[in-house]
C-alpha cells in the first residue's frame, strides 16, 4: 500500500543552514497492518509523517529525493491540488495536539463535517449528519449529539483527542497517520483509544502509521516497528521481537532507559550525551558518539540497513544480541 523508497529530506534552518532531517528512509507498509515509528524528539518522526501527507511547506524544503509510493502513485511528486484530493479522503491524519490542531471558533460538528464537505461537494445535510455521527461514535463518543455544538475548549482533553481521531477517520481513509495521538491521556483512556484505532484496521483493507516516543504503546498497537534516530532508520522489524531482542545498540539503550514496571527496584539507565543536531551529525554511524560498541569503522562510513534475521533490518556494523545467533 505504502512504499517509502530511499527518501531524504533537507530543510532550511535558521540562517539558511541546510538541515538533513531525514536520510535514506525506506519503509514498506502492507494492507491491514500498523507500522509503529519510534524516536525521541528531534529524531524526525513527525517530519516523516508530515512528508507522507505532503504537509511540509515547499518554501522550507531545500532538497527532497526518493519516492513515497501510495497505491501506485508517487506522493513526493504530487502538486498541492493533487494532494488536497487525497488528504482526508485516502490519507487521514490524527494530529498531536488537539488544542492547536482544532479551530477554537468552530464547533465539534463543524470540524468533523468540514472534511466531509471538502471531499463531497453538494452532499445532502442529512447524509452529512449521519456521517458525522458515525465518525464520532466510531471514535468513542457515546452520545455525540450532546457534544456536537461544543467548542474545543468545552471538551475535556480526552474528548478533544477523540475528536481528532473522528476527523482523521471520518472518511474511512485507506491510510491513517497518527502522530502521538494518545500522549498526555490517562492510562485507562489510552488503552481504549488504542483498541479503537486497532479496531479500525480489522477489515484488512486499511493501514496505519502510528508515531510515538512511547515504546510500550507502540508494542501494544503496532505489527512492524521502525526506530528512528537523528533522521536515520536504524532498525525495523516485528514489534514484539524487536523490543524483546533489539539488534541496534540504540534500540537496546532506548529500552534500557524506560522505567521498568517490575516489583524490583531497577532505575532506568540514561543514555549518555545528546541527540546530535541535524547539521552536526557524525560522519560515520549517527549513533557512534553515544554508542558503547563504537569501533574505528563506525566513525568512517555510515552503515547501511541490512538484513539481520527474519523480518529484521538493522543499520549497524556490530549489532547486539547477534553473536549467539551467528554461531
Amino acid at each position, binding site marked *: 500500500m505504502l512504499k517509502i523508497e530511499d527518501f531524504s529530506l533537507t530543510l532550511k534552518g535558521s540562517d539558511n543552514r541546510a538541515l538533513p532531517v531525514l536520510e535514506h528512509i525506506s519503509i514498506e507498509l502492507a494492507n491491514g497492518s500498523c507500522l509503529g515509528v519510534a524516536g525521541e*524528539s528531534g529524531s524526525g518522526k513527525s517530519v516523516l509523517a508530515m512528508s507522507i501527507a505532503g504537509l511540509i511547506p515547499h518554501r522550507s524544503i531545500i532538497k527532497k529525493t526518493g519516492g513515497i509510493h501510495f497505491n501506485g502513485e508517487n506522493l513526493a511528486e504530487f502538486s498541492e491540488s493533487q494532494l488536497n484530493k487525497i488528504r482526508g479522503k485516502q490519507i487521514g491524519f490524527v494530529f498531536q495536539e488537539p488544542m492547536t490542531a482544532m479551530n477554537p471558533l468552530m464547533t465539534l460538528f463543524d470540524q468533523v463535517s468540514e472534511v466531509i464537505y471538502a471531499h463531497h461537494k453538494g452532499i445532502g445535510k442529512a447524509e452529512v449528519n449521519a456521517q458525522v455521527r458515525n465518525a464520532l461514535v466510531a471514535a468513542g463518543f457515546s452520545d455525540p449529539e450532546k457534544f456536537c455544538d461544543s467548542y474545543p475548549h468545552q471538551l475535556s482533553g480526552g474528548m478533544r483527542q477523540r475528536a481528532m481521531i473522528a476527523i482523521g477517520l471520518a472518511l474511512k481513509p485507506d491510510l491513517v497517520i497518527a502522530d502521538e495521538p494518545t500522549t498526555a491521556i490517562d492510562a485507562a483512556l489510552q488503552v481504549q483509544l488504542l483498541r479503537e484505532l486497532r479496531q479500525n484496521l480489522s477489515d484488512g483493507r486499511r493501514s496505519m502509521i502510528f508515531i510515538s516516543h512511547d515504546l510500550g504503546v507502540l508494542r*501494544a498497537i503496532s505489527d512492524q516497528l521502525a526506530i528512528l534516530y537523528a533522521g536515520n532508520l536504524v532498525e525495523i522489524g516485528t514489534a514484539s521481537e524487536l523490543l524483546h531482542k533489539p539488534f541496534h545498540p540504540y534500540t537496546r539503550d532506548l529500552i534500557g532507559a524506560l522505567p521498568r514496571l517490575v516489583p524490583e527496584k531497577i*532505575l532506568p539507565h540514561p543514555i549518555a550525551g545528546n541527540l546530535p543536531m541535524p547539521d552536526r551529525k557524525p560522519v560515520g554511524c549517527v549513533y557512534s558518539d553515544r554508542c558503547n560498541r563504537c569501533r574505528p569503522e563506525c566513525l568512517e562510513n555510515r552503515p547501511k540497513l541490512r538484513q539481520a534475521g527474519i523480518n529484521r533490518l538493522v543499520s549497524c556494523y556490530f549489532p547486539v544480541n547477534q553473536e549467539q545467533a551467528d554461531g
Partner: protein
Amino acid sequence: MAETGKNNILLEVQGLSKKFIIDNSLISWFKKEPPEQIQALDKLNFRVERGETLGVLGESGSGKSTLARVLMGIYKADSGEAKLGGSDIFQAYSDGQMARLQMLRRLQMIFQDPYGSLDPRMTVRQIVAEPLKIHGLYGSESEQLMVKTLAEVGLSADCLERYPAEFSGGQRQRIGICRAMVLNPELIIADEAVSALDVSVQAQILELLCHLRSERRLSMIFISHDVAVVRQISDRIILLYRGNLVEELPADCLLRDAAHPYTADLLASARFLREGAEAAGEVPQAKKEANPDGCCYQRVCKKVHERCRERPPVVELHPGHQVWCWMHHSK
C-alpha cells in the same frame, strides 16, 4: 502507626481538604441553583519521613497537582493541617509575608514544563539567584554556592551567562532543579517533573534526583501519573482517586500486593501500555460527575457492594500498607 521515630517525620498532613467551585456564573445565581463544586482533595492524611521519597500516583483530576499547590500555598486549603518539622505550614502562609517566606525556604517545587517554568528573558545566573535574593540570602558567597549547585545537577559554571532557550529540555529541567536546590530546602515537591521529557533524558533526570536524595538526604514528594516512574523512584506511594486517598503502600509492594480495586485497574492499564499485556480487561473510565457519597470509586468499581455507599474505612493490611476499601474491612 510504626514506632520508627516521631522525630523522623518531616511532613505530616491531616484532614487536608480543598473544594473548587466550578460554575460561579450569574445564570446559576439567578436560577438560585447551588454552584457546582468539585472536591479536589478530601480529608487527606499522610506523612513524609526525612530522606524519603513519597510517590503520589493519580490520573488527571485526582487532585495530585492541587495537593502540590495547596502545600506550596498557591491555593488556600479549606481545612486540615500540615506540619513541616513540627511547624504549621498553613499558619505560616496566613501569618504575613515574613512567615510565608520562611516556610517557602524549606519547601521548594520542581515544575512539569521545562519550557514554561523558566523566564526566557533571564539568564541562568538570574534564574538561580532569584530565590536567594527573594529570601535575602544573596551575598558574597552566593556565586560559589550557585556554581556548586549547578555542578551538582550536572551543569558547568559557564552556563550561568546563557539563556534558557540555549538549552535542551533535559538541561532546562536541571536548571529548574538547581533553582529549587539552591536554598537547600527540607522538602522538594516535584509535580510531573519528568513527564515532558524523552525517555533517555527522563532517565537522566531520575538518576539525578536519586543521586541528590542519597547525597543530600533529600526528602521529596514525587507526583506523577506514570506508574513505572513512581514505582522506581519512590520509597512509599500514595494513590489518589478524585481527591480521595485509596491506598498507601511501600513502593516495593505496589505490583505484588496492591489491594484497592482502583489500584488493580490502574496497574492493568499500565501493564497493557508498557508490556502489551493482554491481561487488561475492560478498563473502567470515570465520568465527569461529582463524587458520590461513600466510596469515590463505586461508580466504576467491578467489586462494588451495598456497603460502598458509605464512606470506606481505612484498613491496615500490613504495617505501612493501608487501603480505604470495604472489601478488606472484615479481614
